[in-house]
């Protein structure tokens, strides 16, 4: 059962990383335009920003 000492914090840590990644993507506006994002993925000449 000593394995839990490694596994439990590892699982929680990975979950936390996922949550932080989600919160970051939300903050950086990646959820603002879901329709546009779908199209951008398949457009082959992405306009250069700026």
């Amino acid at each position, binding site marked *: 059962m000593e394995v839990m000492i490694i596994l439990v914090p590892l699982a929680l840590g990975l979950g936390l990383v996922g*949550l932080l990644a*989600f919160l970051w993507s939300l903050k950086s506006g990646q959820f603002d335009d879901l329709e546009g994002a779908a199209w951008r993925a398949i457009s082959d000449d992405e306009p250069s920003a700026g």
Partner: protein
Amino acid sequence: MMQATRDFSHFVKDVGAGLQHIDLAVEGVNCAGCMSKIERGLSAFPDVTLARMNLTDRRVALEWRGQALDPSNFIDRLAELGYKAYPFRPADAETAEAAQSRFLLRCLGVAAFATMNVMMLSVPVWSGSVGDMLPEQRDFFHWLSALIALPAAAYAGQPFFRSAYRALRARSVNMDVPISVGVLLALGMSLVETANHAEHAYFDAAIMLLTFLLVGRYLDQSMRRKTRAVAGNLAALKSETATKFVGANEIAEVPVAAIDPGDVVLLRPGERCAVDGTVIDGRSEIDQSLITGETTYARAESGTAVYAGTLNISGTLRLRVSAASERTLLSEITRLLDNALQARSRYVRLADRASRLYAPLVHAAALLTVIGWVLAGAGWHDAIVTGIAVLIITCPCALGLAIPTVQTVASGAMFKAGILLNSGDAIERVAEVDYVIFDKTGTLTLPDLEVVNASEIPDPVLRLAGQLALASHHPAAAAVARAANAKAPLAGAVEEPGQGVRGAVGGVEVRLGRPSFCDAEPLAIARASGDPEASLVAFRLGDTRHLFCVHQALRPDARAMVSELAHRNIGMEILSGDREQVVRSAARALGVTQWRAGVKPQEKIARIEQLKRSGYKVMMVGDGLNDAPSLAAAHVSMSPISATHLSQATADLVFLGRSLAPVIGAIDFSRRALRLMQQNIWLAVGYNMLAVPLAVGGLVTPLIAAAAMSGSSLLVMLNALRGGRLPNGGTPWK
């Protein structure tokens, strides 16, 4: 003629570091191609640092360095690329809603993360409790669950706790009260149980409940946000600008928001006034049909009050913009509107009605369970734990999803059918409608004039008349141009104010305008006796003369809509501010027997009140400023997108396009949605009720609680998906 410069500085925001920002609403963008074309086209300006198109909102955000670039350059570039764009400034309500939506998504993320991790810990406990898990290991897992669930619930539960607190402070109960009570008790009890090394803890049930409910809230919110963005764009695309005098002889086109009382604005023929004011110079005829419903033109001269929405017909006017206190008609309308809004019986939403019945019931059941177990000889601790288990199992998880999911699906379907929802509970109220009152002008009829006898006129003549008509600003001439589908004006045509336009084709003089201007009076008199309501526009080519009958035409499917309403056993009536003659002929053409003409705003309200007293649920459909109070007084109300601002803001639903099909569509979709909501409530309650005997008997394990909760939630979500289609399996009525 003075040339106006365009001034968009009102919309430009300084975002610091020498950067300027503007948002433009763009029409006609619908694919990736448009998106990259626009972004590339705008990025080509040397100083532009950001050009990002948002395909959901149909807006482009632009940032550039320095003062050198004028925003009108961007608009011109977009016009070259084939897109119509207008500067846009999000309304405060929209900004607040966007922030709220982000907050809900953050809460959902936190709750979902916690649910997944708590579940990961709970599953071994559930399977371990029948196997070989040691009590110490179980306690350890419970403590870990508490560590995750408690902070997560404290954060993600905020929307519910706040709303419940507000309701309780107002001495009422909403759906969030039993939710909050259930979640807090479940968490509290689980904490105490864990400290006492007990077998069952309900951290998983509590946090999963929050996750499911947040999904419902977020869906509901994002649909509303999308609707609001579209409505905001439409308002911007309507181009609310006015021509303001910035010097003695210098004019600039500025957004209405940048105009103050006391400013002087210019109103040219064919322009719609965007402000309220008083004429200080000039003479003209004005069309006030959007204000009063009266289609006869009124005379305007020095001292005449002109309201926003008025169409200027013949001459150029100078107006002094008036302050709110000076508006006589508007202040009367505002007073009526305030009264009507106050009197609007506070409608209690289905969800709240359900929770008012449900909350006392489940809380009483939990209390009875505790008392029952104590009387049966159980200890206080066991009795209370069982009572809380009853609360957890009856916690309205599915009930909280039952209505928002249906609302989301139904409002999405209505959105596709051209109906925008202004208020969240409109669906429930539309579903109950059994009487519809229509305004005539602009509602049953199209907002623009139309030529009704285009087919009687030979094609070459129609084409020529259309070209000539393009040289005029008169709305009747605009109707002729539309009927002829004219693209380019006739070269060298001259407008004679108040008379018409004339030009020459191959040395022959052509004229379009008043019958007297074209020597067509005998023809006009003969025609007028047959069709007294039409405005007549004469056309003269050499010695031949033709007459165009210009009408405010009925919407193309108005008649079909009347029979569809009758088919659904819904009463209908026309209340119009227009002349009796015109209203009578419209009512006859539509086959409507109940109609009244020359009705004042307060009389419209009186009629609605009378119908309400006889038990009718009245829907008011209107567009004019004079309709705004009655829109507020009715059980539910609808406006076309061409309506005045005040009416649109007051109406519960706004519909797009030339057709009246959305009126029927709104009723059909809403009736279907209401049925599904009721079904969902019974499904949710029924499902939970199955588990209640187990809970009362003290047999509920956390596994049963979790299964019951997710099962009933899935059931109501699946049922809600049926709301996007109509019961007959067909498409919405066209």
